[in-house]
């Protein structure tokens, strides 16, 4: 078994010799994303659990705004507090920009089409809104293909459950960093929220 210790020592030396970045703020975005963010958001920004949003292909502006909102505690929904307040607390503006660019450049997760009835209802809300309830069309800001635009996030390829949780957060007031969305979801029923989220996620 002596060879084992020799091998282990060699492993330490070999991995240690590859060097560490000079300062955490200078850590490359790829290194941060791979070594830290990927634990929840998955390799290249495609996560498994719907607790954690897919970041692959997300709008860079949107990521910058959210990381900044976590850092300043402006965004305080339960999972934002539990995970992201800590995670974002020591990020510099440059690191945030680097991460945003890294994730924006990744290939988005493919959307998953669900129950047909729900898709039809969701498509109607997404494309046309609900005039009687004063709900505007999602597509007007998030784009016809749900790809997002600047501060408006990509919804296509997102976990539907994550989108539902965000819409509920806007409705109940646990997430308050997007006043437009607070106004949009005010009158939506739980079924309408689920349908719109499922359709947007499927794009």
């Amino acid at each position: 078994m002596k060879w084992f210790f020799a091998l282990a020592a060699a492993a330490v030396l070999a991995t240690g010799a590859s060097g560490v970045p000079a300062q955490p703020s200078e850590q490359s975005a790829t290194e941060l994303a791979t070594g830290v963010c990927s634990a929840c958001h998955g390799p290249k920004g495609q996560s498994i659990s719907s607790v954690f949003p897919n970041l692959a292909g997300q709008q860079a502006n949107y990521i910058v705004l959210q990381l900044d909102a976590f850092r300043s505690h402006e965004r305080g929904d339960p999972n934002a507090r539990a995970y992201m307040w800590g995670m974002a607390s020591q990020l510099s503006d440059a690191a945030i920009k680097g991460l945003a660019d890294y994730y924006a450049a990744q290939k988005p997760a493919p959307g998953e089409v669900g129950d047909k009835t729900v898709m039809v209802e969701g498509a109607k809300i997404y494309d046309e809104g609900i005039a009687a309830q004063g709900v505007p069309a999602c597509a007007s800001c998030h784009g016809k293909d749900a790809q997002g635009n600047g501060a408006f996030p990509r919804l296509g390829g997102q976990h539907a459950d994550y989108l539902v949780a965000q819409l509920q957060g806007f409705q109940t007031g646990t997430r308050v960093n997007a006043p437009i969305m607070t106004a949009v979801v005010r009158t939506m029923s739980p079924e309408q929220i689920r349908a719109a989220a499922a359709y947007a996620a499927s794009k």
Partner: protein
Amino acid sequence: MSKLGWKRVRMCACAVTVAGALGSGAAQAVPSYARQTGLACEACHTAFPELTPYGRRFKLNGYTIDNLPQVSGISPNKQETLLLNQLAPLSFMFQTSYTRTKSAMPDSTLPGELAKNGQVLFPQQASLFYAGRIAPNLGAFVQMTYDGTSGTFGWDNTDIRYARSINENLLLGLSLNNNPTVQDPWNSTPAWQTPFDQRSSVAPSPGAVTMLDGGLVDAGVAGLSMYGYLYNSVYAEFGGYHSAPAAAQLDSTSTNVVNNLAPYWRIAYEHQWGRHSWEIGAYGVVAKIHPGGGIALSGPTNKYEDWALDSQYQYIGDDHIVSVSTTYIDEKQTLDSTYGAGASTNASDRLKTFRIGTSYLYQRKYGAALGYFRTTGSSDALLYPSGAPVVGFANGSPNSNGWTGELDWLPYQNLKLALQYTGYSKFNGASSNYDGNGRNASDNDTSYLLFWFNY
């Protein structure tokens, strides 16, 4: 699991005393990790000490993920020479408990007299932890524990890790630790097996345990292992354990000394989908042991070959959390030393342990758990001797089985109140008069109330 106190019956067949009732208990939840990462306990734990998928990743990453202001140093060529958290990653744990067995224990010295039933331990255990990053890629979980049963302060679970992500799909690491499976990320292996990671440290518990299930940790060992985690799903680990008791030198005064290295191995596969995760794995150790205790540490050894299977399922929803964990350990004992010395009836024995437990947690505040345990093995009248009250084996059989139920209340994520009941159908080989002194298995049925906080 507290390593303080008891040496298992099987390993030192002579040391069978009532006072030696075993201590058990674990603590893996440490708020210094929360302070270091800025993550709430719920990020890494369903209810402490059970880890979530993210908690497993944090552990495998070497406890190094960090979000604190740093004290740092660099060399003229910009190489990092220091990176220290401005706050030391220290934590404190306190447990106090009340234990009552169905029938009172016999008095430890006066024949025919009974001890008082209903024991308060204040504390049952109190621990100090250093738990957090030491340097980039290097982190630790170090526990020092005051044990309320023995009244001593001693070294407890330790896991020092070096880990590095090679790319987004492969993580490699090393663990230096003192308890086989303490380094394991799943809660289906013995060191951190949930849901019943805590049991009364004063109530009697079955005398026969396998090496993997506590035998080695009680002997005092230190081990180094290498591990790899691929695609967030395939885990492989290989290492070895060496004797490391608190002693000036290893000689005939030592007991249960591991000959050379005891190789340890572990493979596991985890599949995550949505909010579910399911792990299945195997692990094992092969330990050649000199019984010592007056016998020279040369010549024949006892060889223990353990292999085990384990599995864990978790569903982690916003309101509901369900976990199931199970393990089966099979130990082949080739007792060349003990048999040669006339201290066992058979030249070789088997010992098998099976445990399964499931828990439900509502809004991370209210929990309930139920589990079953069973140990069976070869009868060996010398290895499992009769005669001693409570801890004896009247018919030389190590067989025990029973069930445990528990209710939990966690008013905050770092505070737990647990009410637990353990019922025995069989204890140390029999249901009735198992110790040869008239004690029945059900007399050891245990009610246990635990108050536990970490800060």
